[in-house]
């Protein structure tokens, strides 16, 4: 924590007030509501309900399907986070290298950032259409009988690809600005010390990019866990069937689509706990490892 600081009493409270008020009304109140309804089975219109204790949770932990979805969510999050960061880093390093056309590349690579997740999913459907999708045809030409919506793994592949496609630009922008903020003196020193460009990158550039990297890691994990909702929903065409899905989508399927208030609330609570644990973990890690100069 910062040692230096102001001692004024009322000002910080005033500054915090709007934030606290909004989250109290639109976060904690609904969250408390979710915790409460996770112990009930409730008619969605609010006419009947039974207190069922931990039944909703027991039901979930006993469900092999829920376990399957949890596993897929972890895998999906790891893949999307890794590939969108790696691809963006590669492109950012290259864009930082070249002089001619650097600006053009930068502009070209940023377009997709603005695509809404449902629209990204919609474009994914276009690319992977079963009868004429350009990517389906491409897969066929290398002997891969790609079937979106039929084959579990193919659908999962499409979900990862579309999610990565949508996320690369934002990572690219941040990596590029991170790279360009590395002082010239450091770069020159590195040139003299390190022989291969790969070593130079690994020993000098990469550590300097770490703060940006951690910042992006959080954004990307959040994105993969939650904001890909629209992509998943569009790619399964609104009918989950035997397709892969993520935990957040499952909350939506049972609660929003299926009106199972108790069951979906229990899932929300489980997610909240997981996310809280993840947040605490990230803070510990970030605070310990990263030094802001």
């Amino acid at each position: 924590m910062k040692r230096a600081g102001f001692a004024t009493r009322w000002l910080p409270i005033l500054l915090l007030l709007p934030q606290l008020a909004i989250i109290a009304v639109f976060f904690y109140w609904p969250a408390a509501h979710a915790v409460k309804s996770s112990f009930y089975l409730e008619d969605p219109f609010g006419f009947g309900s039974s207190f069922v204790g931990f039944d909703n949770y027991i039901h979930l932990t006993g469900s092999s399907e829920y376990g399957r979805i949890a596993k897929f969510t972890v895998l999906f999050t790891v893949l999307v986070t890794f590939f969108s960061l790696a691809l963006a880093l590669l492109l950012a390093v290259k864009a930082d290298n070249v002089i001619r056309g650097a600006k053009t590349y930068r502009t070209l690579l940023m377009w997709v950032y603005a695509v809404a997740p449902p629209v990204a999913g919609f474009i994914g459907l276009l690319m992977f259409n079963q009868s004429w999708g350009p990517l389906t045809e491409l897969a066929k030409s290398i002997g891969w009988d790609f079937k979106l919506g039929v084959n579990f793994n193919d659908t999962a592949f499409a979900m990862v690809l579309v999610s990565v496609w949508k996320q690369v630009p934002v990572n690219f922008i941040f990596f590029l600005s991170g790279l360009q903020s590395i002082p010239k003196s450091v770069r020159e020193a590195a040139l003299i010390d390190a022989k291969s460009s790969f070593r130079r990158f690994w020993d000098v550039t990469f550590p300097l990019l770490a703060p940006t990297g951690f910042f992006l890691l959080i954004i990307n994990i959040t994105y993969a866990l939650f904001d890909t909702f629209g992509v998943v929903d569009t790619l399964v065409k609104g009918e989950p069937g035997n397709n892969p899905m993520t935990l957040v989508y499952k909350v939506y399927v049972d609660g929003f689509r299926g009106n199972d208030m108790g069951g979906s609330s229990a899932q929300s609570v489980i997610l909240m706990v997981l996310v809280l644990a993840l947040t605490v973990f990230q803070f510990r890690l970030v605070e310990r490892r990263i030094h802001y100069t």
Partner: protein
Amino acid sequence: MKNIAISSAAALSMLANTAFAETEITWWHGMGGALGETVNQIAEGFNASQDDYTITPVFKGTYEETLTAGIAAFRAGEQPNIMQVFDAGAATVIAAQGATVPVQDLLEANGVDFDITDYISGVRYFYADADGKMIGMPFNSSSPIMYYNVQALEAAGVTPPVTWEEFETVTAPALKDAGYTAMAQSHLPWIFVENFMSRNDLPFATNNNGYDGAEGTEILVNIEPLKAHFTALTEWQDAGYFEWFGTGWGDNQTPFEEGEVAIWFGSSGSFGGLSQKDLGFDFSATYLPYWEAVTTEPKQTFIGGAALFAMSGKSDEENAAASAFFEYLTSPEVQYMWHRETGYVPITTAAYEMATADGHYDRFPAAETGILQLSLDASENTRGYRMGFYVQIRDVMNREFGRILTGETSVDDAFDAIEAESNELLARFAQTQN
């Protein structure tokens, strides 16, 4: 602050009420694209037809989004006057008895003659209660029917199969020899479970298909005839008679449109889309086949699609407006227009007769198939079904059927899983009703 805002808003709305003599009602629906435009056309027609009431239709997203938005609004006291609810969501809204005013009561209370036998047989009871009182007004009603490529069947030298036995031994092999995939379908739970039960005269759930109440209702899908049907599907898949393209509706319809698949099971409502696409062949339609091994007296099917519910908690004037709208909606002229424009079936016999007299079915014979199938012999198994959390039950079915058809599970295991998970969902739903 808040109170002042609310009371001034109330004052404003009172002013608005006195300023306009017309009673305004709202109608939330889930019909996008061209369907939504036809919905708007109906609303405009109603508003122009009289001076007392104005209806405003509002598009609220998919069926599921519409229902959930309606539920949230109801809990907050902001419900629309009329809400569209789809077949799988019917149990939720009908079970919540205080949430809606049964349309039959609404119409009778406002002095409109109501006789359920005016409606086409297969349409009457899907949204009715155990006593046969109509709760929701069927709106976009469709039934699964069998479309076929006329040239393909001619080339193979066969006629549309009447039974699944005929399909298996005669139609499919001939179509395969003629270079076609014999069959595809667009909605497994709806076509090959729900209406399979109705067509083959099998009970779908205990408690009178669930109509007698949620308590103790259990699904009856783990039965030999149904398992035999899905076993046959996997065999047909291996033999090249059947192909499954996932849960997406259009993905299964496209191969039929492209002339690769000769027979496609879709909705009677799909007629509209098919006829707009100037296909490279003639298509026609007929009834769903049945298994002779299961029954020799096949029955009618019931409707899918969605119905309109009058939400409770509204003033008498607004209810009168809703009643007037339902009366307008069920008039033969409007029903025929809806039928002609969209391909959905007209819900009353009078509208059907008007369409017949106008020569609609001479021009488009396939448009009549759904109505005829809905008018076949009825039995206690053909009214429909009433199961809570049915959206999730369909999800479970879709998931397990997908796994069967991709070879991830066996038919026996899949139906065990469907039975167990569905009954668990039904028991949980029963608990929400206390």
